[in-house]
């Protein structure tokens, strides 16, 4: 049976259970997803355009369990998570596999006008809101998001109402904890209304590295007029964890979006960023870094659609690949015919640190408007020998010089992270990662690996 059919038949056999466990606002999207999947017929493989290093067919092939009957995993959130980024006070929520559990601080301190809650709960209490947004951006446009829609049962809703400026960052920690191979089907719905602002930090962890996990995450983000969102995503799971994370964003006029992706310890990760700039005067910053060794695979794909005039976007992707790791970057800037005065830039820089590391890059421009400034650049190389030599002549030992250069290479991605405390944390994590320590979150998510 093909990977896809295995999940379609899982759905068809358990249709009643799934429908009974979920509110109507979620269930109503499933028929369309099912017919879309049947139309696709299969999951994309490496021969499909845009999937050069990722075969979803293979990724979804193991017979992962899906928590259809909504078993609550025995994890005492309050006990095991003191996860906190130093100097950054956050509103913390934890998602165990795909089930949302707010922290005590979150329940107590969540300011007025801000909702951070379980998707299932909000879908039951405020179905109109969920119906208005959920599924509109992902819209079954590819097999992975359609499969997510077919099987989704929970996730997180973050809503910041009109004009509310949230100082504290919202931190969502996704944790895998199961004593069997498991697929978690997560959903994030983020709505930042007019002139509101928020900072969101999403961390991915695996609590056990004994089992194969697969995480399928679809995040839909709606930015209202003049809204601001900083979105940081850090993945530090295990080498047995595969993940496909899709971020769909719709930006209204004058909204500002900063997205930062960090892939440190992963098995096979595919991150997709689909950003639609639908209003004038938007500003979009997208930066991601990947450090990989062993046989890890990190695959980033971005598509920024400039559908409206006078917007600006800037992308920076950096990869450091060691051992037998593979990296892929496919990025597209699309400028519609009436999107005049668009400024769009994209840059991809990759460093190969071993003979067996592989990098595939496809930066693309598709431009239908003449009054634009667009550019992209991609380079793949290795550490600058001259710089290394220079440092050695100044008495810096080679190993240290290498470390410094690699850190410097990554620092311009880290510098773009808008949350100050998080920048320091990331620098620290990168340093440890580069020095060969298995990058556990240290005392950040201290308990994740206990």
């Amino acid at each position: 049976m093909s990977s896809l059919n295995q999940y379609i038949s899982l759905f068809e056999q358990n249709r009643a259970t799934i429908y009974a466990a979920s509110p109507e606002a979620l269930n109503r999207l499933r028929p369309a997803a099912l017919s879309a999947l049947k139309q696709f017929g299969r999951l994309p493989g490496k021969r499909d355009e845009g999937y050069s290093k990722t075969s979803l067919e293979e990724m979804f092939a193991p017979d992962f369990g899906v928590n259809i009957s909504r078993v609550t995993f025995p994890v005492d959130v309050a006990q095991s998570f003191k996860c906190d980024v130093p100097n950054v006070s956050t509103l913390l929520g934890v998602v165990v596999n795909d089930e949302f559990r707010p922290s005590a601080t979150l329940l107590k301190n969540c300011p007025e006008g801000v909702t951070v809650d379980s998707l299932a709960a909000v879908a039951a209490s405020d179905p109109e809101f969920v119906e208005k947004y959920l599924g509109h951006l992902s819209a079954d446009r590819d097999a992975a998001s359609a499969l997510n829609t077919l099987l989704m049962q929970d996730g997180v809703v973050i809503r910041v109402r009109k004009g509310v400026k949230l100082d504290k960052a919202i931190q969502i920690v996704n944790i895998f904890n199961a004593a069997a191979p498991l697929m978690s089907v997560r959903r994030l719905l983020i709505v930042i209304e007019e002139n509101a602002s928020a900072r969101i930090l999403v961390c991915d962890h695996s609590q056990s590295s004994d089992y194969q996990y697969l995480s399928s995450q679809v995040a839909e983000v709606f930015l209202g007029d003049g809204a601001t969102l900083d979105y940081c995503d850090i993945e530090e799971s295990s080498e047995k964890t595969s993940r496909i994370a899709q971020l769909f964003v719709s930006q209204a006029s004058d909204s500002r979006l900063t997205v930062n992706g960090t892939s440190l310890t992963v098995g096979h990760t595919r991150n997709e960023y689909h950003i639609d700039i639908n209003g004038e005067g938007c500003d979009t910053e997208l930066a991601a870094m990947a450090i990989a060794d062993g046989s890890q695979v990190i695959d980033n794909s971005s598509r920024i659609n400039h559908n409206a005039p006078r917007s600006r976007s800037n992308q920076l992707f950096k990869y450091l690949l060691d051992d037998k790791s593979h990296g892929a970057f496919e990025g597209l800037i699309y400028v519609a015919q009436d999107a005049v005065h668009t400024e769009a830039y994209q840059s991809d820089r990759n460093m190969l640190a071993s003979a067996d590391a592989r990098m595939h890059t496809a930066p693309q421009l598709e431009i239908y408007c003449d009054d634009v400034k667009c550019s992209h650049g991609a380079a793949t190389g290795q550490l600058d020998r001259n710089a290394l030599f220079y440092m050695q002549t100044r008495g810096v030992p080679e190993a240290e010089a290498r470390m410094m250069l690699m850190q410097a290479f990554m620092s311009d991605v880290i510098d773009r992270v808008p949350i100050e405390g998080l920048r320091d944390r990331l620098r620290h994590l990168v340093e440890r990662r580069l020095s060969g320590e298995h990058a556990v979150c240290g005392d950040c998510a201290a308990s994740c690996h206990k």
Partner: protein
Amino acid sequence: MANDNKNINSTDNASSDDVLRDVTGSDYKYGFVSDIDSDIIARGLNEDVVRLISKKKGEPEWLLDFRLKAFRYWETLKMPDWAHLDIPPIDYQAISYYAAPKKKESPKSLDEVDPQLLDTFNRLGIPLEEQKALSGMAVDAVMDSVSVKTTHREKLAELGIIFCSFSEAVKDYPDLVRKYLGKVVSYRDNFFAALNSAVFSDGSFVYIPKGVRCPMELSTYFRINASGTGQFERTLIVADDESYVSYLEGCTAPMRDENQLHAAIVEIIVEERAEVKYSTVQNWYAGDKEGKGGVYNFVTKRGLCRGDFSKLSWTQVETGSAITWKYPGCILAGEGSVGEFYSVAVTNNFQQADTGTKMIHIGKNSRSTIVSKGISAGHSQNSYRGLVSVAPDASGVRNYTQCDSLLLSSTCGAHTFPYIDVKNDTAIVEHEATTSKISEDQLFYCNQRGIPTEEAVALIVNGYAKEVMNKLPMEFAVEAQKLLSITLEGSVG
């Protein structure tokens, strides 16, 4: 004051728009039809047609086998749809696969060539007549994919250089042809390569022996004349050790309402320390201003730099064709081999182009340079698509790619789709691309120095394409300049 500025700018805008319209709105000069008696076989494609073509050309058994294998493989294929092109369905059974100007015997001297045919090539400015020997170019003229006349053969033969039509080569040098045919572009390479391998009617064959530096430019001029036909020619160039050749290719076609198919294959083999320079000025009929008619140009060109320190350089000026699908590539297998690709692609009206290159680095210390300049106007779509790949054992590879796009209207499109695959940690691969229009700042700067807007546009477009034009051999640069001035009339001074 602010208002005044605005006014000045808006008039400037209007006038520069007019200039651009003038610049991009001129006609095709080579659209005439020559009234030449042609031998055309019935439309349609099946095994019998393949056998008939082979029989008409009196080919040996092995070549017929090659064609049949290709045809059977082609039947299993579907037309590729991955390019950024909107290709209307092509009825492959509605095309005649063989058309040749009728001739009694192959001409011994120029006097025996049909005067009408000579006139055609003279109108195209191709020096077929020997007295034009001064122009210093050996020409193989191919009309409707059959070679009409090759000049300067004797002089070249003294040096041991073989320059003749493909069918003559099959007769006279079967071993050489058999040794190299299909070695760089296999009939299994792609849909159009398979089609060409099955039905190719003629083309040029070049062999440069060891240590010979070809004293003149070799040139093939392709012309589609008969209607309802396609053109399927094949070029095979072999440069033996330490040889050098510069090869030019030009193409034109009459103006017709129907779309004509051109699916060619060019194979080049470059041995140790040899160098081949291949220049193309492609000016197939591009269709009228409403996008009606024009040639579909689906070409597979590839060179194999087999020897160490060999070099292959592609230069192309693409101004014609309704649809272009073409990726001249280099397989850099030899150690220290060098691949170059310089391209100017101009699209206007409803033309579509998806063109670029492939640099496949297999040899150690191989290097490649890619410079691609796209100019889009009217409602055209112009895409660069390229691949740079570095094999695991190819250490010390260096690539630099630059592809720029210039947009001359608000309704056209310019796209860039580079693919970069690096499998070796000592490679340095760089890609840069920019897209912009002629900026008001640049125009203003020129105006300010007393250069009228029209000349300023000319200056900027000219300067933009210069980097590539400079790479063309002198004989061709003149023609290419002329062509740019037809497509972008008034801008090249």
